[in-house]
């Protein structure tokens, strides 16, 4: 809803505004939807002037149609695929996280969601030399673990520090703070945040459900509205700045005992790709299942070893590790 104001477009002046208001036309939507001919008579202004104002307002406020061919060309030049640093997960995701999309990791406590987020941050900042924005909503971010991961990649503390510096952390413990951070990023911070060369290529929100889930439930629609807002900002950030967005979500069980991603039906169609993480029966392995994707057949499963970086003797890896099978 956009309220009509003086100086919004040439010709829309105080006097005309007053007359329009008297005719119960207060917003751009009102003006655009009303019968211009009728309105011109009631406000005693010329039809052509009002018509021209309507056209200018429409051009200002409507979304502009883009040709599919142009969009495709633009996409080809801006899309990048970011490796997660975990070869098997990359395989599941058809080689990694795609920029311009939201990827969701869901799983219960201790299923390795945050570990994967750390791994992505480290990989993007160290190997790809690009910046990462990490929004921590649970306080679960441990820089020590990231450093541990980096140590297995390089022994030079200078390089380690350089990589860590490319990871920018924001903490937001409620949905308003999260929206604040995201709006701030959209309003120019995203470009500024690119420290030490590379631009921001990944935005991680761990976890998105921690701030949204408490708002849901009951007969309130405000929580749902906020959730849709968060989703909207994430999507626009992903699209407009071609950033890969990675969010984590909890899981719940349906009445029939089936594991389903948290945050309900209205959230379920927001991420383009979803990976369900579970503890495998034995040891440190995690089972990752692709539950939503537009590129790969769904329900593919891979086992991940998240201890990969804690073994000090693990061989220094090249740019890409080969799947160890």
């Amino acid at each position, binding site marked *: *809803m956009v309220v009509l104001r003086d100086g919004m*477009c040439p*010709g829309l002046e105080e006097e005309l505004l007053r007359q329009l208001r008297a005719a119960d036309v207060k917003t*751009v*939507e009102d003006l*655009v*939807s009303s019968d*211009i*001919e009728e309105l011109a008579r009631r406000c005693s202004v*010329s*039809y*052509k*002037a009002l*018509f*021209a104002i309507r*056209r*200018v307002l429409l*051009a200002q*406020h409507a*979304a*502009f*149609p*883009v*040709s*599919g*061919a142009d*969009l*495709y060309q633009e*996409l*080809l*030049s*801006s*899309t*990048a695929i970011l*490796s997660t640093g975990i070869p098997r997960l*990359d395989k599941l995701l058809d*080689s990694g996280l*795609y920029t311009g999309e939201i990827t969701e990791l869901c799983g219960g406590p201790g299923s390795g969601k945050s570990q994967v987020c750390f791994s992505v941050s480290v990989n993007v900042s160290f190997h790809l030399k690009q910046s990462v924005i990490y929004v921590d909503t649970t306080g679960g971010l441990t820089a020590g673990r990231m450093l541990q991961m980096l140590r297995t990649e390089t022994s030079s503390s200078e390089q380690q520090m350089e990589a860590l510096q490319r990871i920018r952390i924001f903490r937001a413990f409620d949905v308003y703070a999260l929206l604040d951070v995201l709006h701030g990023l959209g309003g120019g911070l995203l470009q500024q945040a690119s420290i030490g060369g*590379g631009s921001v290529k990944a935005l991680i929100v761990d976890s998105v459900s921690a701030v949204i889930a408490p708002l849901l439930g009951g007969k309130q*629609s405000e929580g749902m*509205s906020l*959730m*849709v*807002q968060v989703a*909207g900002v994430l999507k626009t950030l992903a*699209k407009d700045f071609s950033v890969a967005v990675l969010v984590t979500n909890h899981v719940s069980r349906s*009445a029939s005992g089936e594991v*389903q991603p948290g945050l*309900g*039906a*209205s959230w*379920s*169609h927001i991420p383009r790709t979803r990976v369900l993480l579970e503890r495998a029966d034995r040891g440190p392995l995690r089972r990752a299942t692709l539950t*939503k994707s*537009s*590129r790969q*057949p769904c*329900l*593919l499963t891979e086992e991940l070893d998240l201890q990969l970086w804690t073994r000090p003797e693990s061989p220094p890896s090249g740019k*890409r590790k080969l799947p160890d099978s």
Partner: protein
Amino acid sequence: MCIVTLHGCVYVSTRVRLCACSSCVITSLSASSSAPFQEVLKQARGTLESEMNESGAQLLARLEARRSLKDIEPRLFPDGGGPESGEVVELFGTEGTGKTELLYHLLCRCVLPEAAGGLQVDVVFVDTDYSLDMLRLVSVLDGRLNAGDATRLSLRTPRFPWTGEPQQGRTRVSECLCLCPDEEALSSCLSRLLVVHCSSSSQLLLTLHFLETSLSARPGLSLLLIDSISAFYWPDRSAGGASVTKQEETLTKCSELLGRLLRDYRVTVFTSCHPIRRSGAGSSSDWDRPFLCRSWQRLVTHRLLCSRQEAAGGAGEQRRRQVFSVHCNSFKTKTQRSSCFTVTDGGVQFL
């Protein structure tokens, strides 16, 4: 008295019903001519100049009926019950039930040239969910363009934008790097598609008004896709306060406008709609009940209910072939039809 320059012809009339399309310019002799208005008009006319010249052939093309999409997908609709011009089809289904794939399938059928089995019409895609996956759409489109040679699946590999070097690793995308058979055919298909991104319901309303120009200027435009119409349900509900009328106000306006556009321009509309409840959760029977405002429900003439069939057995081969089913309900002809499809690399395949 007004002199109306309409589509390049000059009419003189005392009172005319004015067309809001961009090709009409109105010069009113009786207008109060204060300076700023003249300026506005000049500005508006400046933007118009380019669109103003229209030949008689183009005028004829506009007045001619648009291509009907009755035969867009005979396997989906009841016999003879395909969507006529000016009708609205709603695809309803939870996440992962093949709605988007189905939309891409229909979209491809529309933009493909007649030689490749398409309808060769223009399409507007109103993307309210920011869900349009161009890479996927192109791979489906490519599959259709090279239907004869099924092994060729082409898509250029995305490159690292900051260095320009191709992505490493053996991805399905990069394996087909050199197999771009017909870039031109692809881009001519894609140029038949117009994409609009909307971020709020009031922007959707304004955009629909704005699209009226495109509708009147492009006679080849026959399909309007909205993905999805329910995207702003929760923000609208929250913004409207306690009053249901207020909550539904914008969508009602959109529906009324859409109704008028459908009457005037005879395009066909396909929309997707996400349910607000999970199927099978709690009171499981009413997950598919329509929840959008009444004036929208009145517009809908066909409803496609999408669902996923539970994959029987756990064999690897079975997993790859998930079966989706779609149930079509045509309100006008009171007929129904169910069909099943699977999704492959090349898009929807009906069973």
